[in-house]
């Protein structure tokens, strides 16, 4: 549930980028930060290991200004994708309002994607949240690699393996190039705010 301070007229919404390791979650946030940091007037917090992997989480608060008279801050988080950081992922999901699932399109990552999505489902359950009800957007990342002759999972297969039941909106994206990064963000923010609005009504 988002943090809403009626007295201070402040709304904080938590969006978590989830997905298998090295799928492009941090790259999404880095792109958003690099493009919009001056407008967003914010700092990105990133804790990485020597090997440039996300250690704990990345955190990017994104100030949207006043919405309906409320100062609205979107807090973007990533989780470490590596299997071993299970407890950290659970912790970062606490209080989540919306999820972007960044799937890795590389052909050999099918199992990793499925595993990570199932992992998301279970970790949400631990926080009494249902993956079918929480605002969710799929981002099929690294699609640009097809142009370089690198075999990718077909979108139809990704949809069938990951999204056939959930039927969440999805985007083909390249976080590295910034393609559909913003559209993904827009979609999840709108969906999340929409759910938040309904919950408050």
């Amino acid at each position, binding site marked *: 549930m988002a943090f809403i301070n009626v007295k201070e007229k402040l709304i904080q919404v938590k969006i978590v980028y989830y997905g298998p390791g090295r799928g492009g979650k941090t790259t999404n946030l880095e792109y958003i930060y690099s493009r919009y940091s001056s407008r967003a007037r914010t700092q990105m917090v990133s804790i990485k290991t020597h090997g440039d992997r996300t250690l704990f989480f990345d955190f990017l608060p994104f100030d949207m200004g006043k919405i309906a008279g409320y100062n609205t801050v979107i807090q973007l988080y990533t989780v470490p994708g590596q299997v071993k950081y299970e407890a950290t992922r659970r912790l970062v999901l606490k209080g989540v309002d919306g999820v972007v699932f960044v799937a890795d399109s590389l052909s050999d990552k099918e199992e990793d994607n499925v595993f990570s999505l199932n992992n998301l489902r*279970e970790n949400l359950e631990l926080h009494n949240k249902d993956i079918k009800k929480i605002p969710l957007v799929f981002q099929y990342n690294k699609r*640009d690699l097809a142009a370089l002759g690198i075999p990718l999972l077909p979108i139809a297969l990704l949809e069938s393996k990951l999204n056939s039941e959930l039927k969440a909106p999805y985007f083909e994206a390249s976080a590295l190039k910034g393609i559909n990064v913003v559209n993904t963000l827009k979609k999840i923010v709108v969906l999340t705010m929409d759910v*938040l609005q309904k919950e408050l009504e």
Partner: protein
Amino acid sequence: MDKKMTGISQEVEKRLDEIFSEAEPVEELFDDIPEAIEETDFIDDYSILKQLKAIVLSIDWEIKDEYLMDLINEAERLKEEYKNERPLVLMFQMLISIAKYLQKKKTQALPDSVTVLKSVFEGIERIFANENISEAEKEQELSRQLAAFNALKMAIQEQAKKPKKEEKEPEKIIEKAEFKEEPVVSPHEYAPLQYAAPSYEETQVPAQKEGEISPEEPELKEEKLVPSQGFISQEYSAPEPKVPKFYMENESEEVVPKTTPMEPHEAFFYALEEIKEAIRSEFRAIRAELKLWRESQQR
């Protein structure tokens, strides 16, 4: 409050459009990507090494027998192709040796072996990247990689000397049970650039002991390989009730570790444990780098 929230979605959408419309470059269409694409980290420009790089990156992500076999085959092919270039031949041989060592030791292999593997590959990549590289510079690169390689050999020897510790009970923290720390050392970063390259004789390695790897003639015997099974999956496939499987072997199997409800303080504790372990591994990496640096200074 409710009234004020009414219509928020539309307002949010409008606000996001305002925020992003100016800064957003012309949206690239995927149809245009072949023309618009630039070189990225995913792919290098040295087509000769393209396959090798893909394999090394795969191994960096997950160590599988099939990747190691691919690496050995590709490195053997390149070694033959560049048989007249001693630095390259030796570095390809290092890759082969480390790959064979990983094949043999599997999860018991030192985590730094993957780091050294990557370092050697990066050394090869630097040689290919510089068209005007001199022979002396190639030898320098070889020396740097040999230093890292020899340090790894020493570490392996030390490990072999240590008496085996008693098997510990699996910990409750499932994610800590089997995973090795990340390979995090980049030995070449602190290696000196100036010391003289060793002679060919110096690069010859005497008879190896068990578990030792050599750039010249690895004596490690190849084990019978289990196709399409990662080391982690092999380890997790053991019938240990407390350790769930993390990688499915076929689609009918459950692929998610069985989770149990966790109190917030428990989750926080486990997260702290993960961070502590990561910090410890970072320190180990720094110590290893310092050791390499000191050794190189003594030469």
